[in-house]
């Protein structure tokens, strides 16, 4: 199935890394270019995108669709005070995305694919539940966010491995996958089943064709990494090096999309509930965000929704 809009899922292992701030900033920049832009807050349970786009009391939200109060996903969209910027809010959701039943997830994925917008940004929240992974895999353009802290890096590596793993998992039925896990266990010892690179090796040995297919599939992905909250003493080359490690040791290509400097004004803007980009346009951070939007939302490429049968 083809996606109508360009979809950028934004994920990161850890809460507080700046996913929502980046989602709202990229959304504002995209809307500012005249693109009809939709933000979807899928960080259910910890939703706050509405606050970042100055819409404290959204009238409708995502769970209205899940609870069938609103039959069509497009009708849960609310306008924001920013021209061209729209939101499907996750406010008032006591639903956890991890607990979204399978059919509901598929229904949502398909509904997102049919939404008529130029750009869609998904704020996925933290964690590596299957549902989060599947939403991340909705398009080829997933963006990983991390900060230069070991905790955040640890979580983003875990997320990247989980995504990889999930994609491999999609290609097999339960029995075959179980057999693969056992083989990995035997070949690489315990713990190998949590390492997609080992699983891939086993797939290569047992199902060379599927292996080539998955490899091909991953070559089509345009994953990106953003390093947020970089302070002045941090290693500016960190993001590039992380991507290098992932390519070298996982065989996954992730493009480094850029650093976003740390700035206390972000806090100030959020507290004042104003747009950081408008209030502090001359900070390095604002410049970084504009650069980022050039390499992210302003690049176009082929994109397809992964087929869920």
């Amino acid at each position: 199935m083809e996606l109508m809009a360009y979809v950028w899922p934004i994920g990161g292992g850890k809460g507080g890394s700046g996913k929502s701030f980046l989602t709202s900033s990229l959304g504002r920049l995209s809307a500012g270019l005249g693109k009809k832009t939709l933000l979807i807050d899928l960080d259910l349970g910890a939703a706050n995108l509405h606050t970042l786009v100055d819409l404290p009391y959204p009238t409708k939200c995502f769970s209205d669709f899940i609870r069938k109060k609103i039959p069509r996903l497009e009708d849960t969209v609310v306008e924001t005070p920013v021209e061209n910027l729209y939101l499907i809010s996750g406010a008032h959701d006591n639903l956890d995305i991890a607990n979204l039943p399978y059919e509901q997830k598929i229904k949502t994925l398909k509904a997102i694919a049919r939404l008529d917008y130029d750009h869609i940004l998904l704020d996925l929240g933290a964690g590596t539940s299957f549902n989060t992974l599947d939403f991340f895999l909705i398009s080829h353009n997933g963006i990983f966010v991390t900060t230069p802290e070991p905790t955040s890096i640890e979580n983003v590596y875990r997320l990247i491995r989980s995504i990889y793993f999930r994609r491999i998992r999609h290609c097999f039925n339960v029995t075959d996958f179980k057999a693969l896990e056992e083989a990995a266990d035997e070949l690489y010892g315990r713990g190998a089943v949590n390492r997609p690179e080992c699983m891939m090796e086993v797939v290569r040995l047992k199902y060379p064709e599927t292996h080539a297919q998955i490899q091909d599939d991953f070559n089509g992905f345009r994953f990106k990494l953003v390093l947020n909250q970089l302070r002045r003493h941090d290693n500016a080359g960190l993001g590039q090096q992380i991507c290098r490690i992932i390519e070298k040791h996982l065989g996954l290509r992730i493009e480094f999309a850029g650093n976003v400097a740390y700035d206390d004004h972000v806090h100030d803007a959020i507290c004042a509930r104003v747009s950081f980009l408008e209030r502090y346009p001359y900070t390095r951070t604002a410049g970084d965000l504009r650069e980022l939007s050039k390499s992210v939302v302003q690049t176009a490429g082929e994109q397809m929704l992964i087929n869920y049968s």
Partner: protein
Amino acid sequence: MADMEGKRAVQGKFADLNYYEMLDIRPDAVPFEIRHAYQNAIQMYEPGSLVSYSFFSEHERKEILAHIEKAYLTLVNGKERQGYDAELVRRGVLKGDVCREKADKKPVSIFSISRSSVLQPVCQKKAELKARIAQCPRIGAIAQKTDICGADLQEIREALGVTLEQIADETKIRLDYLRAIEASEASRLPAPVFLKGFVKAYLKHLCVDPGEEISTRYMAALSVQSEGKAS
């Protein structure tokens, strides 16, 4: 350039990579590049490294570091490297006409190194200025003022540790004009069309963004001020 057979560095097995792949260098790398690559690799894989934090088990990390050490010691030693290259050729990994000898003779690598050392100071200076601007909230604050006067520009320049002479040198703007810009002395300054270009060049030299906008605000403030004096 020497060609590496299609083998991609994937699927986790670091030990299966050849030494060039381990260090991320081309087979015709010169010793300078090898040392640099080695330092990079250590920085990425050493136990305290943030880059690879949590990515490897302790055991894997030790193994990788041992491989890197071996790769480095082999490749920086001319004789051992020759032997290793011969082995790669035998294994079909490296094409027979090992190009390194050619590369050694070619002036290309020396040229590219000397060229980069000429370019570096300029790039470095720009990067340094940008870094300083990022670290100095005062500059950001000035840049956002609606009324920008000469003293504001001077404050930015001094905060960045740049002299007027340096600006004059690079922009070719006369020093007395630069002084008048900072003193907001309209009477000693050229016509607005020229002046605005000067202010922009001045800001560009300091890497202060956005030059267009700030110079517009400077011009506006200057004209208000001179009108005030006139009346």
